């Protein structure tokens, strides 16, 4: 059944609280992450990614291609997480043209005015945050978070995400959402993953989060 242990973390002081329990049995290691805000409410659509603390053996398998669609003058998904080395296509399903660009240091590119999917995929070779915009539609905002790991996910409406098929070892659990300022995000915590067991991680994003960008607003924010 379940054997629990508390793992000390480097930054327990800042984190507030953290409980990690390792459970089994399972075929590979699993980490269940739950995320709440300062008032204990579950947080949806928060990115969680695990970075192995020991260098991973090199792999010749390229990550699966991903897509960042444009629908109804919005990037869909609003946040896309990809592994370093992933190729991403940007199909425009709208009847109007878009002109997608990024000036983020992690990947600068421009896809000239288009409809449909005429452009070659964009390769993301450097980890970091890539902020997407459209030169025609100021209100369009999207994010691609490039991480140096195949182990990532996004929380559901219960604020939970399960990351599976983890080789044994120590991982740093990272959290990101555009709705929080960097100092609101929990500090990186370490978790030990054992084969055929599941670790539980509870994290808190401090303070109040910004409202989702795509939430309908009673006033207009793009006037020019």
């Amino acid at each position: 059944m379940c054997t629990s242990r508390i793992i000390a973390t480097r930054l327990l002081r800042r984190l507030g609280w953290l409980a990690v329990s390792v459970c089994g049995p399972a075929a590979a290691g699993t980490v269940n992450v739950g995320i709440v805000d300062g008032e204990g409410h579950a947080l949806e659509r928060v990115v969680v990614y695990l970075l192995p603390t020991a260098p991973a053996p090199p792999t010749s398998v390229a990550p699966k291609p991903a897509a960042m669609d444009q629908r109804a003058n919005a990037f869909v998904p609003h946040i896309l997480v990809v592994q370093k080395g992933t190729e991403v296509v940007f199909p425009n399903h709208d009847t109007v043209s878009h002109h997608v660009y990024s000036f983020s240091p992690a990947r600068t590119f421009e896809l000239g005015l288009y409809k449909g999917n005429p452009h070659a995929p964009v390769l993301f070779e450097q980890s970091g945050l890539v902020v997407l915009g459209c030169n025609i539609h100021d209100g369009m905002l999207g994010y691609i978070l490039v991480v140096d790991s195949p182990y990532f996910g996004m929380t559901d409406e219960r604020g939970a995400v399960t990351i599976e098929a983890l080789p044994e070892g120590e991982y740093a659990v990272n959290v990101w959402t555009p709705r929080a300022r960097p100092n609101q995000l929990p500090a990186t915590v370490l978790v030990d993953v054992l084969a055929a067991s599941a670790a539980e991680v509870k994290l808190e994003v401090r303070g109040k989060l910004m409202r989702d960008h795509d939430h309908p607003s009673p006033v207009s924010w793009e006037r020019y």
Partner: protein
Amino acid sequence: MGTLLARAGSALLAVACAGAVAAQEPSDRHQWRIEIDAGYVGADSPLGSWPSGGLGKLRYDETDEHLNAMRVFAQYKGRITPTLSMTVVADYVEDGSAGLDLTEAFLDWRPIPKSPMQQQVRIGAFYPPLSLENGEAGWQSPFTYSYSAINTWIGEEIRPIGAEWSMRRRLGAVGSPQQLRAFASGFFGNDPAGTLLFWRGWSLHDRQSRLNDKLSIPPMPVYTAGVQTGTRPHTLEPFEEIDHEPGVYAGLEWRYARRALVQLAYYDNRADPSAFADGQWGWDTAFTQLAAQFELPGEIGLVAQWMSGDTYWILGTRPNGTRSSTARLVEDRFESKFLLLTRLVRGAHRLSLRYDDFEIVRDEAAPALQADVGHAWTVAYRYSHSARLTGGVEWVEIESRRDLWPLFYSAPHEATESQLRLLVSFNYGAPKTR
């Protein structure tokens, strides 16, 4: 005047050419939106409506209590290159100098950002980015039908004809919620801006002046006498260039995601207050504006603007530029502010409530004359039946006081004006963005 007409004509010609290209090439390079606003008016004003030459602050009076075609407009947005587009808005109205004319015609250049700084340049005749109400196609407000006193006046007398540079950039880390916008413009036209404020005072309506409009000025006896002797214009052409000196405006805007926005701006038409050309006088008009909008708890939107400025005119300048022996500099100090609360209910219903406060003080006498002091309440309900068909009802009530009324007319110091509007709006074409 001639240059304005030429500008308008060339813009229309460009639209026609673009339309011809559009016919052969089905794409979104050419976007049209046509909107027809019509409705019933109920009004109660002892002063009469100002477009029909009255002293009142409203667009309609008792003589308009029937079905009115309030506005028909067409907005064209065309893309010339991937980063260069043009916008032309043509308006048809039946009051004032009725007919079809342009409200805006400009080129808009947005180079692809290579850094966090996004730049934009507009050239032509356009609205300055000062109104937090008028964010929709055709410079319409999504909140109320009658605009606030401040934005009504901007729609009446402020229309830079020149160039505007602006830039936006995020502050702080990538993905930061804070954004800064700066804008600056040099422009011609607008030299008579302030005339309507001086003669008529503030008003609340949605009749935007078109580039070649001739607006009626209330029949002040002193002024009427001037018309008879040929020393006063009988109509105002608000966007004329008289002294051939450019005006300026500039501003800074800070935004925090979709939560808060604060703007500080300064406008000065830098007109020569003694200049005269084509029946129009220059008015040296400058103002500062502080504007803000917030999204409050309960999904309530708050919009507020405060404007304070002054306008100078040399009373007694003759049409030939010489001055009479009694010529003197007249100064009006004007100030207005409004607070608007709005809420969208289930996406299709919108309720808005606005309080306007305004004053104009004239320093030519001691004590200073209360040239126009008052306040107004506006409440509106709007319903979006579909993307094509919307409608609503609005009530406006204005209480104001003018020291000049008893002097010039046998009218009381104070007046209360009210107006009820039922409006149905049908549109066809592109989305409702500016």
